[in-house]
């Protein structure tokens, strides 16, 4: 019963703050609403027994990506206080975009409801930490992907530094 309450709390937090992200005219409000969305998703991860992923979510998304996005907004706007307006598209475009996204949401939800999922859920008693199994998998079955990921990170760092450099 407590799990239900926690799930609904985080679901409302995620959807409400995502609505602010999508609809707010003030870009700073959007970024800070994105913080609550990421935090809510981390809570959902904890609810799904993914402890390592929850900590990773908080460290990388909130500690890294969000700070980068705030830097991006601050460096590319004429900052005159906390009120940084974003240009919106017209009403007709907003209407059709809303139609498309509602269509996507309704169709995915309909598929999810009408499919008879064969679930074998994890009970809370037979799960300890996931860190040990994730580490084992990363260094055995997924070793090639892991190493390619590190090379990709190196390439991305060099490329980003090269592109953003002042001439």
């Amino acid at each position: 019963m407590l799990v239900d309450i926690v799930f609904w709390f985080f679901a409302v937090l995620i959807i409400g703050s995502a609505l602010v992200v999508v609809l707010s005219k003030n870009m700073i409000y959007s970024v800070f609403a994105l913080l609550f969305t990421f935090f809510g998703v981390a809570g959902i991860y904890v609810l799904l027994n993914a402890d390592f992923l929850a900590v990773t979510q908080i460290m990388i998304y909130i500690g890294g990506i969000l700070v980068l996005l705030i830097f991006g907004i601050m460096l590319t706007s004429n900052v005159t206080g906390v009120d940084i307006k974003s240009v919106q598209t017209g009403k007709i475009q907003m209407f059709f975009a809303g139609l498309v996204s509602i269509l996507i949401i309704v169709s995915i939800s309909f598929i999810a409801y009408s499919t008879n999922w064969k679930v074998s859920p994890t009970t809370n008693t037979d799960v300890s930490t996931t860190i040990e199994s994730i580490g084992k998998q990363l260094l055995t079955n997924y070793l090639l992907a892991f190493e390619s990921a590190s090379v990709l990170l190196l390439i991305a760092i060099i490329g980003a530094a090269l592109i953003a450099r002042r001439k």
Partner: protein
Amino acid sequence: MGIGLTHYIVLSAILFGLGIFAIITRKNAVLVLMGVELVLNSANINFIAFAKFNKMNIDGHIAAIFVIMLAAIEVAVALAIVLNIYQNYKHINVDEIDSLKD
């Protein structure tokens, strides 16, 4: 009625739709990037929900880790490009940027 797999899928579907809406309607490049982040987060919720409802299959967690890593890379490179565009155009409205070099 307890919380099942369907609840998580519907939650991630709503997050996905909102992210698509942000990608379509926003003009500012940084806000488009935030829409992409919402979409990637919804994919991650799906991965981990399916992992939990399949006897804690750890493959879903590995996929989610790679998605998070790619999101970090994507934001870094995209912000470098956005800063470069801002030096040329003095704005980052994606609908008015139509040439790579001035």
